[in-house]
C-alpha cells in the first residue's frame, strides 16, 4: 500500500443574479420617532446572512450606526415583493433596492435636519455615529434622534424610503444564443492538495488554497463563512455525495444520513482563502455575492489533484474509491504526475488549546 500526494487546480467565474435579469427586489425603510430604522423586506435568510448584509448596506447608506437599523424579513403583509434568495442575487439585487430605499429616507432625514439647522440640505453630511452636521463645520450639528423627533412631531414629515432594483428582462436569440445574461461576475482560483491511497482508493484532502474575487466585501467574516462552508460542500460533492451512485441506474440510493455520505468534522481540510475586491460597477457598494460559487472550483481541483497523484482521470462525479481503483487497474498501476510547486506559504490558524 502506498499513499500518493498530488496537487490540482481550477479557475472559474460565476454570474451574479438571475440570468437575463427580470428579477426585481423591493425594500421599504422607515424610522421610529427617535431615529431608529426598520428595513422591511421579503428576502430570505437561508443562513447566508441576508439580514445582516441588508442591515449594513442600509446603515451605510443612511449614514447611521449599524445598531440603529434592524431588518425585518420575510412577512408578505409587510415586506414588499422580492424574487427570492437564489441565483446569488440577494446581495446584488436586494442590496441595490435597500440602497435606493435608504437614499430616499436619507433625503428626508437631511431635509428635516436642514429645516432645524436653517441651512441647505445639500450642505449636510452624516458622521455615521448618529449626528448630522454642516460640511466642514462639525459644531453646527443635530442628532439623528432630534431630527427624527422634529420630523415626526413638528414638521409632519415621514422619514421613510422605498426602493426597487430591476435589471430589465432581456431576450435570447434562438440560433446564436446571443443574450444579455448578467452584469456582474465573480472569480476564483483554487488549489487542492490530496493524498490517494492506492490500495483503498480513498482520497484525503490535505489542504486547499484559494483566491476569490467577489467585488466589495460587505462583511469579511460572513464572506469567510460562505467560502469555508462552501469549500466543505465542494469537497463533499467531489468525493462523496449522490443519491444515485450508479446513475443513470437509479438503484442503490441512500435513504438517510448513514448512507448519504458527507465529510464529518474530523474529515475537514485546512483551508486558506485570499479575497480580492474588484467592485462591480452596478453592485451595492460594488458587492457581488459569494454564496453559490464557493463550491464550484473545488470539484475540478480535486479531480485534477487525483490525476496528479495517481494518473487516473475520473470524469464522473463523485470521485469514489471504486472509480479510482478501477482507473489504477486500467492503467496497469499508479502513474504519478510531475510535482507542482512546494509547501504552501500559509499555516492553519493556530488555536490556543490550554494544557
Amino acid at each position: 500500500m502506498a499513499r500518493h500526494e498530488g496537487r490540482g487546480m481550477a479557475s472559474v467565474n460565476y454570474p451574479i443574479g438571475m440570468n437575463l435579469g427580470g428579477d426585481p427586489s423591493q425594500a421599504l425603510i422607515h424610522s421610529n420617532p427617535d431615529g431608529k430604522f426598520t428595513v422591511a423586506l421579503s428576502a430570505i435568510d437561508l443562513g447566508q446572512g441576508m439580514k445582516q448584509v441588508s442591515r449594513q448596506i442600509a446603515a451605510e447608506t443612511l449614514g447611521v450606526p449599524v445598531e440603529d437599523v434592524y431588518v425585518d424579513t420575510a412577512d408578505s403583509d409587510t415586506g414588499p415583493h422580492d424574487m427570492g434568495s437564489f441565483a446569488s442575487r440577494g446581495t446584488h439585487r436586494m442590496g441595490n433596492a435597500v440602497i435606493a430605499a435608504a437614499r430616499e429616507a436619507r433625503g428626508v432625514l437631511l431635509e428635516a435636519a436642514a429645516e432645524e439647522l436653517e441651512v441647505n440640505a445639500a450642505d449636510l453630511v452624516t458622521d455615521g455615529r448618529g449626528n448630522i452636521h454642516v460640511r466642514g463645520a462639525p459644531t453646527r450639528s443635530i442628532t439623528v434622534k432630534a431630527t427624527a423627533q422634529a420630523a415626526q412631531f413638528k414638521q409632519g414629515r415621514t422619514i421613510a424610503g422605498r426602493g426597487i432594483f430591476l435589471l430589465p428582462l432581456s431576450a435570447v436569440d434562438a440560433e446564436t444564443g446571443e443574450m444579455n445574461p448578467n452584469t456582474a461576475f465573480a472569480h476564483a482560483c483554487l488549489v487542492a492538495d490530496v493524498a490517494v491511497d492506492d490500495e483503498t482508493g480513498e482520497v484525503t484532502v490535505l489542504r486547499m488554497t484559494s483566491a476569490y474575487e467577489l467585488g466589495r466585501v460587505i462583511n469579511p467574516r460572513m464572506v469567510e463563512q460562505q467560502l469555508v462552508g462552501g469549500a466543505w460542500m465542494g469537497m463533499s460533492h467531489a468525493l462523496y455525495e449522490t443519491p444515485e451512485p450508479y446513475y443513470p441506474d437509479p438503484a442503490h440510493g441512500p435513504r438517510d444520513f448513514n448512507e448519504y455520505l458527507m465529510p464529518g468534522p474530523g474529515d475537514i481540510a485546512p483551508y486558506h482563502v485570499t479575497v480580492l475586491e474588484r467592485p462591480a460597477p452596478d453592485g451595492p457598494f460594488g458587492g457581488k455575492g459569494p454564496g453559490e460559487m464557493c463550491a464550484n472550483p473545488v470539484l475540478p481541483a480535486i479531480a485534477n489533484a487525483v490525476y496528479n497523484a495517481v494518473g487516473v482521470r475520473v470524469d464522473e462525479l463523485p470521485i469514489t474509491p471504486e472509480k479510482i481503483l478501477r482507473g489504477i487497474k486500467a492503467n496497469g498501476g499508479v502513474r504519478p504526475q510531475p510535482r507542482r510547486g512546494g509547501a504552501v506559504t500559509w499555516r492553519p490558524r493556530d488555536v490556543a488549546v490550554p494544557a
Partner: protein
Amino acid sequence: MAKLPVQLRLNGADRATFVDPAEPLLTTLRRGLGDFAPKYGCGQGTCGVCTVLVDGEPQLACLTLAVACDGRHVETASGLADGPDMHPLQTAFMAHFAAQCGFCTPGMLTAARALLAHNPHPTREEVVEAISGNICRCTGYEPIILAILAAAAAPGARRA
C-alpha cells in the same frame, strides 16, 4: 391509545404533560411543552439537531421515549444562558461566527456543553469526537470546532 402522564424537570422548571406511549421526547418537548430549541432533522438518530441532556448526558430526543424521561432532568439549549447572561459557549459561537442558518446550533451547543462538563480542556480531536454525531450543512465545522476550543479556554465554561 390512552395517554400517559409524564413529569419532568425542563431546564430547571417542573413540567407535566400527557404523552402517547410511543411518543419521542422530541415531539413532547416541541409540541407538548413548547420548547422549540431541539429541532427535527431526521427522526432517525443520524443528525444530532435534536440533542438534549437527560440527567446531564447527551441524548437524541428523537430516539428517546418521552415516558422514559419521567422524573428526570431534561436540559435543552433554551436553558443554556443564565437568564440574560450567555454561557461561554454561546459567546464563543458568536465570536467565531459559528452559525449560519442556525438550525444545527442548539444541538451543537448541547453536545459541546456535555463535552465540557466532563472534559473541561478537550483537545481538538476530543471536540471533533464530541460533535461527530451532529451534522452541519453550512459552516464546514471549522468555526464550530474553534468556538468550542475557545469556550473551553474561557472562564466559567464548566458552568453546567
